[in-house]
């Protein structure tokens, strides 16, 4: 019986989670292998695996994977280094927030992909341009979310610290920053997921390497098996980095999680 909000047993949860993947692949196999769609438009699971294997072994696709990972993390780390301090400053000092918040809110809605033509003019089609796309896409998001989290720091903790003799500087360094560190790490984990979508867009245009390049290249050859393989690789790497990030947060901030 389905009862609202009633928890599910851990074993059942795993089985249900896997079951959907199985159903999904089964449906995919049925419409492709069963001849319900034209194979030119959608490869079946088996040829997808075959194409993927050939990509990895013959076309050195793993180099593309590595270069895409480097671009995501490079751009993301750059954006974090710039955005986290600005976000903390905005959250902690209200005049800084009043000064920057309207612009950052505006800039957040500028689509990173629309910057690609400009960034190519400015930075060429090399690595710098790819990093800048990720940077532009992530930096304003991180600033805003961090500023909101820091602005919502528990006031009673700040007051307690003042009554214990903390200076304004001490409040920022030893109350506001540690109090929000787990939330900031969670924010970074979230934005890293978005960075993966920006990198592919950056690689679709003016690129000669990377997963996105392979995908756009496969399109002209109608190699749908390769395209799907590329998409699945992105999903798997995203999932892995998310797990790693979660584990890191749990290890860094044992006090915040039950």
């Amino acid at each position, binding site marked *: 019986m389905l009862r609202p909000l009633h928890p599910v047993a851990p074993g059942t949860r795993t089985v249900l989670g896997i079951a959907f993947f199985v159903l999904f692949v089964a449906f995919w196999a049925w419409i492709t292998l069963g001849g319900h769609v034209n194979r030119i438009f959608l490869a079946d699971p088996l040829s997808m695996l075959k194409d993927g294997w050939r990509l990895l072994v013959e076309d050195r696709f793993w180099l593309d994977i590595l270069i895409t990972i480097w671009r995501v993390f490079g751009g993301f780390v750059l954006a974090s280094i710039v955005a986290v301090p600005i976000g903390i400053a905005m959250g902690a000092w209200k005049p800084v927030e009043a000064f920057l918040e309207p612009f950052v809110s505006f800039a957040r809605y500028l689509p990173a992909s629309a910057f690609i033509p400009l960034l190519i003019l400015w930075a060429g089609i090399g690595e710098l341009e790819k990093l800048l796309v990720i940077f532009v896409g992530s930096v304003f998001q991180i600033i805003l979310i961090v500023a909101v989290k820091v602005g919502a720091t528990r006031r009673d903790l700040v007051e307690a610290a003042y009554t*214990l*003799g903390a200076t304004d500087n001490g409040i920022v360094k030893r109350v506001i920053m540690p*109090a929000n560190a787990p939330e900031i790490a969670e924010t970074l984990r979230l934005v890293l997921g978005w960075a993966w979508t920006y990198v592919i867009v950056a690689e679709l245009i003016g690129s000669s390497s990377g997963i996105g390049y392979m995908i756009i290249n496969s399109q002209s050859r109608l190699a749908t098996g390769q395209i799907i393989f590329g998409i699945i690789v992105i999903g798997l790497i995203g999932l892995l980095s998310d797990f790693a990030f979660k584990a890191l947060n749990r290890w860094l901030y044992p006090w*915040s999680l039950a």
Partner: protein
Amino acid sequence: MSKLQIEGVSRTFAGVGGGQPVQALQPVDLAVAANDFITILGPSGCGKSTLLRIVAGLEAPSTGRVLLDGKAVTRPGPDRGMVFQSYTLFPWLTVAENIGFGLREQGRPERERNEIVASYVDLVGLRGFENHWPKQLSGGMQQRTAIARALANDPAILLLDEPFGALDNQTRGLMQELLLGIWERRKKTVLFVTHDIEEAIFMASRVIVMSARPGRIKSDVPVDLPHPRHYTLKTSPEFSALKAQLTEDIRIEAVRTAQTQTA
């Protein structure tokens, strides 16, 4: 000269959305002698917490001033330790690190800090829990840590804002005895805000009763019960007589509060 001098302190809050300003506290005068244990008793919303926060320097008075050892209070500082009703331990610090927080902010050397922290861990009976996170502690243990944290700075006065208000009755009784025991041994000037009549009498050498909003001091009742006090004191005839008197005082104010709220 008194330790703490409250002179004509009042507090008026600006009206919300262009409404009338609200007076939370009428001008209050109060002198507290050194090593006195004062409880401030009043119905909720009478401004007793506001008064305490003004003494702490967390809020500015609209009129008047607060003098501690003859010096005017302008902002919060380590000479006025405070324990809040909500659990305000820093969740990212262990029990020992929480207790040492103030000492660290003042740049005291680590070895000295460790010694002081260890003595306060013992004082509040938390040995063996030094390296626990606050989330691993019960409410009573968290408030014991908070008391140790405030005392570790050796403040001139200890301010407590309904510190046991969120605890269950049994734990609250034990905490009262613990705090009173510390005070009997160590002597400290204490200002303790509560709405619990029994707690106010049991802890105090002097009970200040506040009226309904806008708050003012309604009566000032000395409690001449002997020390050290034991929980059995709460059932003695002298205690009951005081309780009856204060219950009457407070009831009038509570009724008044209820009427202004329904009006």
